[in-house]
């Protein structure tokens, strides 16, 4: 069976080379049958990789311990769902998963565009299949998931496997990696369209129109992946954080940031025909950062909890990134004539320049994260001395940048295209600003002195107020004109321009998430040693350990503290933080007890038993204010993104106010 799997991967690799060559030659020599043949190769690769993946999953589910991958990632006692998710739980399997997703995307793109973009599509296939070929090299020759455990010339089967890391045996972890991969891999598609539009010297924005929805969906997958990771860290790692600025976390954030910048700046190209070079650069950067992220996770170049361990595949990634970078830079530079801006800026105070600022700040945060991630590698190379760049650094650098971005989120959408008058700015921003200042004043009076927290709350209200006023203004007008109630009018307003109002809802989600992030400024924590019947306090909560239980399952042993929670003398609930030791791997894991509320979470972690008195448990207690708003905000962001994808009721014509000819004519008049 493993031979069949390995053969399928090998065949897919050969076919990917064939697809690249046949598609390129077909396009250059204008041979439609070669292009058609390349398209069929794309479908065949999907079939082969589905077969290979199916075989791997079958081996995982049936516990075929002859395979090194199966023995290394599963054990017999593991629940079936985690045996399945072990597909992406290790280096080799997850690389195959990457390949499989890419082949699926490629097949979908090829199929849906089989009658469209006949000029561009062969080159789209070339880019997609080149990337596919790179990953298949890794699957077939470097990190094959079908290696068997061999002693001498015989194949042996391990009695039982080591099991999946217990930290990963959690529901969010089952779907977090696929979401991230769907995001990472998805950005290959807009990149492929961008590059093929350059190769074929397309003057228009066809690639942007075609890939807009694709990019939003991919961005949404990436967002889901990131937030699921955060939710997992919060619920599993036991220290209550949701973001640790770990290199691999940062790696997932980098392409997300550039993609966010891209989603904003494409609007400039669609509406005004500006920023063409910039959009090309952004989508290329997003693609390369996706590959870079995969490289960081795989190569072990920076130490990380998420890394798959030190591996020799780093150099392959470096080579691929270098080729990708070289090719995209060359293509952009050699096609500059086709990327000329069709319009000029008319005022510094305009939507156009607010987009420019938004891009600047997004890229600044991207750079800050990338810089912090790589700084230890740089210092070690230059100074020969290792330093750490951890959460304190990233928080210090990124909080001011993040707050400025939040400010722009409020300001940008309200500035008119082309130019904004002082009067209109005053109209739009007076009340939101007054509300924000009032809120800050009230918070100061209430005793809050944390500078960033005050700024953040003020800005959150400012942005929320601008968004609400935009909705109200539009829907009141519709309600009056069409005799509707306000809610109906809001739905109608959103439906008329889903992209704009969906975008506002996404911004609202971001605001709510910032409220949640800001809560971290007021975290409280304590660590106590308590025995059965003893009580301890944290903030308003009084906690009493009712009993300490223990037990055993085939997969793990557990010990649990049953803690009754009261507030103001009244019992409000019971939490059961648990500690597990997984038998196969002998690794521990916490199942924390969380009482989630909108204002704050009470979070208990059962750290271990005390040694000084063996009947006492060491409990870490935390109060995390407002943290639920991060998850709620994400829900809003998700809904907003979905709305952006719905076709608008009123087809908007992007009236390009200027075209190249007009600009040139204008220039002549000036002379």
């Amino acid at each position, binding site marked *: 069976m493993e031979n069949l799997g390995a053969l399928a991967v090998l065949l897919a690799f050969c076919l990917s080379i064939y697809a690249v060559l046949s598609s390129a030659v077909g396009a250059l020599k204008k041979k439609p049958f070669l292009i058609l043949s390349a398209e069929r190769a794309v479908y065949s690769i999907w079939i082969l990789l589905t077969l290979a993946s199916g075989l791997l999953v079958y081996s995982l589910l049936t516990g075929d311990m002859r395979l090194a991958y199966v023995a290394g990632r599963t054990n017999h006692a593991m629940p079936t769902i985690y045996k399945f998710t072990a597909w992406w739980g290790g280096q080799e399997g997850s690389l195959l998963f990457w390949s499989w997703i890419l082949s699926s995307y490629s097949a979908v793109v090829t199929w849906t565009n089989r009658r469209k973009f006949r000029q561009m599509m062969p080159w789209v296939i070339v880019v997609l299949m080149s990337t596919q070929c790179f990953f298949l090299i890794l699957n077939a020759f470097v990190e094959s998931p079908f290696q068997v455990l061999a002693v001498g010339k015989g194949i042996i089967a391990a009695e039982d496997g080591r099991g999946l890391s217990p930290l990963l045996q959690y529901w969010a972890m089952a779907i977090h990696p696929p979401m991230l991969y769907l995001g990472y891999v998805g950005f290959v598609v807009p990149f492929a369209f961008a590059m093929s539009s350059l190769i074929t010297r397309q003057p228009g924005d066809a690639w942007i129109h075609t890939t807009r929805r694709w990019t939003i969906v991919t961005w949404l997958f990436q967002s889901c992946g990131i937030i699921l990771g955060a939710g997992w860290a919060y619920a599993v790692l036991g220290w209550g954080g949701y973001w640790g600025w770990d290199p691999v976390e940062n790696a997932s954030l980098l392409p997300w940031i550039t993609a966010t910048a891209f989603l904003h700046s494409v609007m400039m190209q669609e509406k005004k025909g500006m920023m063409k070079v910039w959009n090309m650069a952004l989508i290329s950067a997003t693609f390369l950062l996706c590959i870079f992220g995969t490289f960081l996770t795989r190569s072990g170049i920076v130490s990380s909890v998420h890394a798959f361990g030190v591996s020799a595949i780093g150099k392959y990634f470096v080579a691929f990134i270098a080729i990708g970078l070289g090719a995209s830079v060359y293509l952009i530079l050699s096609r500059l004539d086709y990327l000329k801006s069709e319009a000029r*800026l008319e005022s*510094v105070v305009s939507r156009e320049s607010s987009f420019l600022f938004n891009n*600047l700040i997004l890229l600044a945060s991207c750079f800050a994260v990338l810089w912090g991630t790589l700084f230890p590698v740089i210092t070690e190379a230059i100074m020969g001395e290792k*330093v750490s760049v951890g959460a304190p650094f990233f928080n210090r650098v990124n909080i001011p940048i993040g707050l400025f971005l939040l400010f722009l989120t409020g300001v940008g959408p309200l500035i008119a295209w082309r*130019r904004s008058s002082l009067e*209109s700015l005053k109209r739009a921003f007076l009340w939101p600003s007054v509300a924000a200042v009032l809120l800050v004043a009230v918070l100061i009076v209430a005793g809050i002195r944390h500078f960033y927290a005050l700024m953040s709350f003020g800005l959150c209200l400012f942005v929320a107020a601008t968004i609400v006023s935009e909705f109200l203004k539009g829907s009141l007008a519709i309600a009056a004109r069409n005799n509707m109630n306000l809610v109906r009018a809001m739905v109608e307003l959103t439906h008329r321009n889903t992209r704009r109002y969906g975008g506002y809802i996404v911004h609202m989600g971001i605001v709510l998430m910032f409220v949640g992030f800001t809560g971290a400024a007021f975290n409280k924590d304590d660590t*106590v040693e308590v025995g059965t019947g003893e009580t301890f306090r944290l903030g308003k909560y009084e906690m009493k350990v009712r009993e300490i239980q223990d037990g055993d399952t085939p997969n793990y042993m557990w010990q649990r503290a049953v803690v009754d929670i009261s507030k103001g003398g009244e019992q409000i609930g019971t939490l059961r933080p648990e500690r597990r030791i997984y038998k196969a791997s002998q690794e521990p894991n916490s199942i924390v007890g969380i009482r989630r509320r909108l204002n704050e979470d009470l979070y208990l*972690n059962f750290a271990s038993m005390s040694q*000084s008195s063996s009947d006492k448990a*060491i409990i870490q207690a935390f109060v995390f204010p407002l943290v639920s708003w991060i998850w709620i905000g994400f829900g809003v962001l998700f809904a907003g993104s979905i709305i952006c994808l719905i076709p608008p009721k009123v087809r908007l014509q992007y009236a390009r106010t200027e075209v190249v000819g007009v600009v040139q004519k204008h220039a002549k008049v000036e002379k």
Partner: protein
Amino acid sequence: MRRLKSRLLLAALLAATLAPGSTPLQNPEVRRIGKKLGCQCGCQSSLTECNMLQCHFADPARAELLRMVDSGQSEAGILKAFVDRYGKAILREPPTEGFFLIGWVMPFVATAAGAVFLWWFVRRKLRPEAAAAPAAELSSEAYARYRDRIEKDLAKLD
């Protein structure tokens, strides 16, 4: 018998403490200073936040930290002692001196450079007549009326 065996194993593993004697993390100062020091076990967390049982690094380091706090050492002294023993990598952020300063200033320098570039770009891309606002034409009544009209139309368009 098997159940008993696993119970014993469980007890052995779970009874492992963060340090012999009292638990260092009970001390708020240990928790606070511990957040500035990175655990070196590979978990990427701080000393306070490392959640591994019997961590070979965090457990003794926390005990040491508690000893230093109890003996009344200052925070700066404690951090220096840790740096002397484990190197600069124990700190969770780069030192603010010498070459390492680059790590701190670079994000802001890059942002500022980006802003300067953007300013230059915006000036260059501005329409010539918008950059040098033609005062004479503005005073013309007809022109002003025309402009108002455009502004209104544009506001509607958006």
